[in-house]
């Protein structure tokens, strides 16, 4: 074990993490870059942690894996985690921030020759989103509200996976799609689709997307492991935040994004702090849009980063 910094947890005592082998579940998307960097650069090993990374298809399946014990840590989509926390489907702890949107990381696009050119034109449109009741729906809802449209009345959402969206757009099954990088760049380049609006602007600018999540029980049982994980990921986040080259290099190793694509796609931000005020934005916006029925205070969910 390599606990070079003193253990932050009040429980104290003993050397090294309680659990040295941890299984992390993440999606093959840029959000997860930090753990791959940390693993590749030996940050985990330096903390005495051995990590296995499981590829997941969606946050929906990540949570049962976490609760059931197949996974120790997951890349939690804040929207999903807060939703389930509020409905008492699980008691989670966020141990590190992972990803935050920046302009052009997401977009609502329409086919090349579509009449839809501005957010206003989306009235009556069928819009593809990766999952109902998700951050995507919230983001589109927010974009609609800025032009006076209502997501429940004025548009229809259907579910498509990102890779299927270009096909759905081209064959006219949907009028517009909420699409993320690298598909956003891809669909514009290959099919000439045009961006109608960037939903991650205005109220949703620099919006927290995902963070590293464990269960409360696990966090309490393994405080030193949590701290060790936090230190390792933090180092990786700092690298990622400082230099996009780091991400461009690591992306092709755990996704099939080619190095060329990696160098042109828009990337979000990799926060190096874990801020309750920032994440509270998610909960508040969810409440504003009716996804939560009452206010949820996120502060108790955070496990502060070791100093």
């Amino acid at each position: 074990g390599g606990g070079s910094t003193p253990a932050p947890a009040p429980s104290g005592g003993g050397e090294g993490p309680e659990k040295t082998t941890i299984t992390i579940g993440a999606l093959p998307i840029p959000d997860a870059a930090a753990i791959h960097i940390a693993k590749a650069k030996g940050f985990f090993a330096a903390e005495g942690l051995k990590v296995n990374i499981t590829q997941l298809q969606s946050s929906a399946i990540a949570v049962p894996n976490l609760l059931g014990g197949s996974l120790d840590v997951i890349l939690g989509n804040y929207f999903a985690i807060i939703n389930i926390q509020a409905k008492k489907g699980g008691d989670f702890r966020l141990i590190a921030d992972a990803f935050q949107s920046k302009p052009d990381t997401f977009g609502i696009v329409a086919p090349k020759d579509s009449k839809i050119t501005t957010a206003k034109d989306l009235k009556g449109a069928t819009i593809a989103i990766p999952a109902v009741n998700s951050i995507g729906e919230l983001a589109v809802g927010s974009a609609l509200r800025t032009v006076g449209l209502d997501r429940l009345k004025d548009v229809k959402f259907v579910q498509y996976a990102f890779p299927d969206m270009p096909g759905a757009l081209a064959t006219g099954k949907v009028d517009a799609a909420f699409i993320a990088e690298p598909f956003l760049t891809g669909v514009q380049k290959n099919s000439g689709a045009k961006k109608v609006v960037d939903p991650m602007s205005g109220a949703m600018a620099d919006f927290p997307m995902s963070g590293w999540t464990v269960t409360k029980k696990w966090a309490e049982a393994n405080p030193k492991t949590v701290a060790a994980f936090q230190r390792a990921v933090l180092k990786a986040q700092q690298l990622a935040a400082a230099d996009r080259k780091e991400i461009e290099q690591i992306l092709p190793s755990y996704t099939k994004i080619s190095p060329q694509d990696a160098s042109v796609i828009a990337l979000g931000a990799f926060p190096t702090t874990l801020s309750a005020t920032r994440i509270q934005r998610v909960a508040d916006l969810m409440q504003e849009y009716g996804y939560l029925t009452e206010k949820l205070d996120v502060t108790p969910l955070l496990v502060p980063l070791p100093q």
Partner: protein
Amino acid sequence: MPVAIGAWEVGTRQAESVYFPPPSQIAVRMYEAWLTGPAHRLFLTDAALDTFGPSLGRLFGGWLLACLVGVALGVAVGRSRVLADYIDPVIEFCRAVPPAALIPLFIVLFKTSTQMQVATIVYGVIWPILINTIDGARYVDRGHTDSAQVFGVRGARRLVRVVLPSAAPKIFAGLRLSLSLAVVLMVVSELVASSDGIGYQLMYTQQTFDMSAMWGSIVVLAILGYALNTFFLFAEKHILSWHRRARQTT
């Protein structure tokens, strides 16, 4: 059955997990969502009609299409060695391919979402019908084929009067398998590109973390499957009555 439900109720009450609500709670939820409508519509609510209607349409459309294509193709392949040689490998290849993996193809190939969903169902349920029909049609008792041949019973009549009845017990096994599989595939097909249906409902409630409603959808699927199977067995009993009686030993 009552024992199973009792055990379920007790088990879930003991466990007190949000994910596994007790059946009584599920029943209440189902009742509120679907059975509080006007009497002239059998108490079905708008939500129930909007959910079940499209789903049943796709389910039956897909299943019937699969039955037609499966039996027709199965008999052709089962009776013709040459045809079998050519397309057996293609069939074996295709049926190991998950329908979910073909959705990108279906999206591009089919104009409307409904076509796409029906195609997914057909692709998913046709195999048991096809394989069992091929087997049944291929191994018709020699005594029967010989009789048909010497008496000049040929072509379509031979198919209808000799090959199909002889293969019927196997075809029915395939149909029965595919019927509940169609329910499963209906759900699969509604996960993509859909905004209504029981499968959509299932996924939606899962996403919104409305667990008793999600279980409600599962229960509806189970009841639907059970009802379809009961009708099916009823039809089978009549169509295969000769078989049952000829095969019984007393």
